[in-house]
């Protein structure tokens, strides 16, 4: 085996670096993913540096300039209370880019806790978990959110809870399906023959091998969550008023649309670009991972 002995010995750190490079390479080999990532990164940049990108705060009211179009002072104009639209869009990005990933993260935790045992143990555990999830999924998503929010009241924490509960069944089902496939692999049998506990097998042996499809799914879900946070805001069930929130901006601005379209237009464009960006990123990544298999 002369060919193989030329391999250089590598350290764990090098290995991690190599894996990281491979992951990044995966993104950069797909133009779709790169475009999506670029759009998302622009919004992340805006969210982080919001205070430096505008001279206003999102709450300041300019009584002399109410419902005005773009001008040198207000690049995207002002809303009906004279607040700077660009400032509200920029600070609104903070809200949505914080809430969407957190709510999907919580949904993922819930889905993982439910989906892994359902798939791994099967039998009655699976039946019970799946029927509970089915009953949640029976409600139209937006209706479910409305029920939850109107029950517990509108606040950032409650929005997170509502979206997490709405998203958990889908994630649980995906994890269950992946688990059903992976648990028949021989390395799972090997882990059992090592005396591994079921919890260890589920989290250490099965979960890491779900990551490909899971990452793609979670990215898509962050997009949907952003969309739903907007919708809740529009329905008045999102964040309580003066908070800069894209959905709320549309809701407040749509009454004045005939005179000033800028608040609504800016917020809509913001939501659409962010969601499309996330979807492009997820789709590109999915295509690349598929091609690798």
């Amino acid at each position: 085996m002369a060919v193989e002995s030329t391999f250089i010995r590598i350290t764990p750190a090098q290995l991690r670096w190599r894996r990281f490079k491979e992951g990044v390479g995966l993104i950069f080999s797909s133009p779709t993913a790169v475009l999506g990532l670029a759009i998302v990164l622009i919004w992340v940049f805006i969210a982080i540096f919001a205070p430096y990108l505008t001279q206003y705060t999102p709450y300041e009211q300019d009584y002399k300039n109410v419902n005005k179009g773009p001008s040198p002072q207000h690049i995207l104009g002002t809303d009906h209370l004279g607040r700077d639209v660009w400032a509200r869009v920029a600070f609104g990005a903070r809200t949505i880019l914080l809430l969407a990933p957190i709510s999907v993260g919580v949904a993922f935790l819930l889905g993982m806790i439910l989906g892994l045992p359902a798939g791994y143990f099967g039998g009655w555990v699976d039946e019970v978990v799946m029927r509970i999830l089915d009953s949640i999924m029976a409600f139209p998503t937006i209706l479910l959110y409305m029920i939850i929010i109107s029950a517990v009241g509108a606040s950032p924490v409650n929005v997170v809870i509502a979206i997490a509960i709405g998203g958990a069944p889908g994630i649980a089902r995906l994890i269950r399906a992946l688990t059903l496939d992976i648990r028949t692999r021989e390395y799972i049998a090997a882990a059992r023959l090592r005396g591994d506990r079921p919890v260890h097998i589920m989290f250490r042996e099965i979960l890491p091998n779900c990551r490909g499809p899971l990452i793609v799914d979670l990215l898509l879900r962050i997009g949907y969550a952003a969309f739903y946070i907007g919708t809740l805001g529009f329905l008045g069930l999102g964040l309580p008023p003066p908070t800069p929130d894209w959905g709320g901006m549309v809701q407040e601005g749509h009454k004045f649309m005939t005179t000033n379209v800028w608040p609504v237009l800016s917020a809509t464009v913001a939501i659409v670009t962010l969601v499309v960006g996330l979807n492009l990123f997820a789709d590109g990544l999915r295509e690349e991972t598929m091609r690798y298999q």
Partner: protein
Amino acid sequence: MKEEPILSVQNLAIAYKTRKGFIQAVRDVSFEIMPGENLGLVGESGCGKSTVAYSLVGFLGRNGRITNGRIIFKGQDMQSLDEKSLRELRGAHIAMVYQEPMSSLNPTMRIGRQLAEALAAHADLPADEIRRRCIKALEDVYMPEPESILVRYPHQLSGGQQQRVCIAMAMLNQPELLIMDEPTTALDVTVEAAVLDLVAELQEKFRTATLYISHNLGVIARVADKVGVMYAGELVELAPTAQIYSHPLHPYTVGLMRCLPDVDAPRGTRELHPIPGRVPSPAEVPAGCIFAPRCEYAAPECSEGRPSFEEITPGHFSRCWRAREWLETPLWTKKPAQSSTYVCAKPAAEEPILKVEDVRTYYPVPFTSVRSLIGLEKRRYVRAVDGVSLSVDCGYTLGIVGESGCGKSSLARTIVGLEAPTGGKMEFLGIDISDEPVERRRREVIRHLQMVFQNPDGTLNPSYTVGDQIAMSLKRFRVVPADEVYGRVVQLLEAVKLNETYYYRLPRQLSGGEKQRVGIARAIASNPKMVICDEPVSALDVSVQAAVLTLLQEIQQEYQTAMILISHDLSSVRFFSDYVAVMYLGKIVEYGQVEEIFSPPSHPYTAALLAAVPRPDPTLKQEFIRLSGEIPSPVNPPAGCRFHTRCPYKIGEICEREEPPARRMSMDHIIYCHLPADTLHAIHPVIRRSA
């Protein structure tokens, strides 16, 4: 007058477009097939055999293309043909049979319609004539009751029957050239033997020129007139069958033959010689002779220039710089069969390490009707293991052989605790383990009872490095103190002929054989007293099989581990085991020391299995004990002797009614059969050497 070849391939080269650019999958392949001739193509996987076959019918996919050379079929250059004329050629003049019969038949269409379609596509015939021809074709492949087959769906046929239908379909239009791509690889050995008989017979009857692709030298020896050996995309040797097996002129051909365990060689009389290294991927073909890096005869000049494909003696081509030397000093002489010197010493009154008594493993059949769901019908079970008793002594190997579905894997999984037994008793190291799935077993039991798995791609967790996966076992069982784990992993890697550089590699960076070695290292990490190997080599290439089998044997000798080797391959079982159990439909039919199993007296089923193994020697004429019928379903096994439905020696009603008695032929040798002892002595596969 010289006969024109049906097919002539000249300097064929094929490239595939990949992300890394074009990759040459096949280079400089030339051969001819005469009318009525059967050319066998043999080689390890990834050598380009199938690529050549697909190129003949212009089927290279979107990313493949012929970059050089010509394919001339009946005087016509195939590359000059457009899609329409190619379509007319395929099916009518060139037909193909594939490896997986299940996926080459359309599951939603009845057999009759599929056959009719193949015929109607190329000939304008009235419906009753089409039907008549379809029935005739099915009769030609010995399908019983062809009329009833016509209205069945593919899933209602067994694998062997499906392959017969595929062959019938290919023969319908009486093609001039038949391409068979590993047609028997997916079939059981007794079914394979019957299909090979059929191929040979059709060959004689219709004189169809055939290109037969297989990785199995034994199969090729039986069907081919001429053999081409492929290696890494090149044809390295081409000669008449008898000649290539008696006087091979290329080291690779010899390597392939020497790494095969011989089913006729008694245990201990033969060593396997694995070919070192692996087939280079098409992207990294070495300069010079492509085989030189793995060749034990390589001279320095071999890695300089690429040898050409030369005719060394009339009709015998070889691509080796030293081919002419091999004429005088033959590379290979088949050793005459030696008588066995192997004696299995019975250990002195020591308790067996594993005792299994009357173990049964049933799987419930999923509900198929509303009646069964609400409990109106009795629940039905697949009786995978149905009353098996055996014992294994410390440091010895028990081989379990049988065809697929006989319950050998279920038995293994039951013993290690991955499946719960439905009944029976199991004792390991004197501890009762019958009612304990692996999760409830004591750590000591788990530690000493480990398993090597079949599928190299599934055996390692793709998310962890090789070293971590072995280390996990060491830590779990506290085999060595924590600070010595790394060193011990390296020792284990070296024990399986890998080295330290493999520690931080991920499974996907390993070849199949390497993965299997890591699987073995993981199994022996806890210093187990017993390892169960479930088909450890059946998914590997022959050259790698030899290496892994030899490795297992070395490990056993060094660690004195008891082993159970589960295999469908009788030759590896004979090479490796001290005791052998033959299983059929969930029961053991014969049990004994290895040489007792492989010589008379034999159970009729054992004899049939043995007879069905294709031998890599064209001079051997085997007289087959043919098994009629199909393996019955384990949901509803036949009463009495389970083998009676297929047994050629059935003596009458007693076989159908009564469980066969255990006949003790010697101290360890038991045959479960109703036949009188002297008949059992007379049963053995007849093998004679033709003059």
